[in-house]
């Protein structure tokens, strides 16, 4: 789980090309969007693509996205559950 969370943080910083943010700066429980890390709906589009590309997990709709994008913890949990369900 810790390894997955670290991987997610690195992907977010690298692939969303966040400036002045390091993976270590991202709190596991902080909201990813808006008031948290300040990501917006355009970033959500990229996140859906990145999760599919790196983990083979599809986020089909915002019901799933709402849960998954809550925080790094939630996203890691979501990916693990999806992988286990395969």
């Amino acid at each position: 789980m810790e390894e997955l969370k670290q991987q997610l943080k690195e992907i977010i910083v690298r692939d969303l090309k966040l400036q002045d943010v390091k993976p270590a700066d991202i709190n596991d429980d902080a909201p990813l969007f808006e008031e948290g890390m300040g990501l917006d709906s355009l970033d959500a589009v990229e996140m859906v693509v990145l999760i599919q590309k790196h983990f083979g997990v599809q986020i089909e709709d915002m019901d799933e996205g709402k849960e998954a994008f809550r925080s790094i913890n939630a996203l890691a949990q979501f990916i693990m559950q999806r992988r286990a369900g395969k």
Partner: protein
Amino acid sequence: MGRIFWRKLEGFGHAIFYVCLFIGGQTGAYLLLGPVVFFYVLVSRRSHRLTKAYRQRRFPEHRGVNAWLDTFRIVYSFGQILVDRAWLGIRKEVGLEGELVGRDRLLRTVAEGKGLVLLTAHVGNWQTALSHICDLAVPVNSLMHYDQAAVAKHYFDLRGEQTPFRIINTEGLMGGLVEATAALMRGEVVTVMADRYIKGPFVTADFIGSPVRLPAAAYSLAAATGAPLAVLLAAKTGRTRYSLTVWDIFTPVIGDRQERQKNLAVGAARFAGALNEYVRQYPYQWYNFFDFWRQ
């Protein structure tokens, strides 16, 4: 009292047109439409105000009677679209004859399997024409605000038919972008009304000589998923004819985060360029009745 009164009056007006459609068909309703629109444009300063921003840019040399006629032609042409929609709704056996200009190019793009974002706008008989896109070989999704309660009901509601496309409601969280992304990644088509900006990220592009805000989501969707983007605009070309034209196909890029806004604006400029060309050819089929440049 005001709001309820006008709503009832609007409903009453619609009812009269439906009666005309039942009795005289499309021609009968067009005959009624002429004097109704003439009277409306004559007494309603609002009709001129709502078209002013567009008219002044599209016809800067028109004043007085010419400007009045421009308003009349825009409102009349919009009225025809509404009549057609209702006519097709109540007469299931009739239909519009249409052509899809650029069809082969569009089908080739869809066949690449990368998904396709179809950009369209509130011009021409867009809703009727788009409802005929059912032979693209992949499922079609429409990212749109779906208000079934509107008095002027959507074409497919009136036909009592199942929509040929799945509606992704923009009222949802993230404006339906997550659902749209998933659809593109399955290689499907997503249509987006790319002219009206309501909320969320935007980009600025030049349209008829002035900068305008346009929603950025479509370009971001295409760039993130690698899906190409096609500008597809509909025009009413005859009493029962329409033309759907593929004006442009391109694949936007996002690039670095600090370049994101600039790169998305390149896509918006392509769309605005196609829209510019469209209103040059069909100047009276522009149906954004507000100051488009202040949205």
